[in-house]
Structures are given as C-alpha cells and as structure tokens.
C-alpha cells in the first residue's frame, strides 16, 4: 500500500470516527440535556484536526526504497482531485440553492426570509469534509480496481 492509499484510508477512518462520535454525542446530549447542550457535541469535530497528520505517510521508511509514488500514482491523484472538486462544487451549489428554494417556498412572496449565520462555517466545514472524503474514496476505488493482478 503506497502513501496515497494510506492517506486515503486514514482520512476515511478519521472522518467516520469524528462524524460517528459527533452523532452519538449530539443525540445523547439532546435527549438528556436539550438542544442547547447538544451543541457541545460539535467539539468532537475537532478530531478532524487529525487529518493534518497525513503527510507523515509520505516519509521514506527505507533509504533503499527509491520510488514511493510514480507517474501512475500522480494520475490517480489528479483524477481523484478532479472528482472531489466536482462533487464539492455540487455540494456548495446544493448548500446555496436548497435552503433558498425551501425557505422561499415556505415563505411565499414574503421577503423576510433568513437563516442563521451559524450555518456558514458548518457549510464550509461540510464542504471540506466532502472534498477530503470524496478524494479518499476515489483514490481507494481506483487502486481497488487494479487489485488482483499481482504476478511475478
């Protein structure tokens, strides 16, 4: 498994762990202490900071190991970045248009429609998660397609 695959797997583990723990904590706090206390669960999303450790996978373990990533890995990375970019763009389009459409329909012709500005950092963080998650899945899927052809 090369560093790119390790990074992708690590990203997915961290994202799943952070979102899973956040969901559990949010539901528990909501049930026990109410909606205001449930906001404390957002602190668990700080676990996503672990994603910053992924460059450690690119260290060379053995000096004799000359090539860690080559042109094919570069192409796989580029394709994954393109897919992730498109998916993130679609996410931001939906994040802008869906609330607008829903609130506009509910409000009828009224101009007095608004959403809390607290949604803005959440939308941004969601976009970053979508970007990293999609990139990671695209990496693993592309390498996974080639698995099973090992022969010497």
């Amino acid at each position: 498994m090369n560093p790119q695959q390790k990074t992708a797997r690590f990203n997915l583990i961290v994202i799943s762990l952070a979102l899973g723990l956040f969901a559990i904590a949010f539901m528990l706090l909501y049930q026990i202490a109410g909606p205001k206390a449930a906001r404390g669960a957002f602190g668990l999303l700080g676990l996503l900071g672990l994603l910053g450790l992924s460059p450690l996978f690119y260290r060379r373990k053995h000096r004799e190991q000359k090539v860690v990533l080559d042109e094919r890995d570069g192409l796989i990375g580029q394709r994954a970045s393109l897919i992730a970019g498109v998916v993130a763009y679609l996410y931001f389009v939906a994040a802008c248009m869906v609330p607008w459409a829903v609130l506009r329909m509910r409000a009828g012709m009224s101009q007095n429609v608004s959403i809390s500005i607290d949604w803005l950092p959440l939308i941004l963080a969601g976009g970053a998660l979508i970007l990293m998650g999609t990139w990671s899945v695209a990496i693993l899927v592309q390498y996974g397609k080639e698995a099973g052809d090992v022969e010497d």
Partner: protein
Amino acid sequence: MSKTDLSNRIRRLRFDHGEMTQQELAERVEVTRQTIIALEAGKYAPSLPLAFRIARVFGVAIEEVFQYDEDPGGD
C-alpha cells in the same frame, strides 16, 4: 483505470532477459512495481519517457515493446 488500446510485450521481454522480476524492472525504470503490474495487464498506458526507459532497459526499439491498436473493434 480502464484497458487501453496499447498492448505490450513487457512480460515476454522480462523473461527473455534472465527472468527479470517486476520489482527489478520497476527499480530500473524508477516506478513502483504496481505500475509494472498495471502495464503488463494493459490497464495503464505509460508516458512517453517511461515507455522509452522500458525499451532501453531491454535494449530494443520502443515499437518492439509497445504496439498501438488503432482500430481495436474494426476490420
């Protein structure tokens, strides 16, 4: 990556050159073994510099290693 229109004789040439392993070839052309595997399986079309490096390792012309099928489904 999907199959390409490029076929190659890398596996044959490896065996003709003292049963060179995929790892040995990968080290000589400075790629990973997985790339050699993908090349032999026809799942990856190499860059021109890599194709030249592979041909030079075997001491043959690039056309003797790689063949481009211009009309794979045609007559």
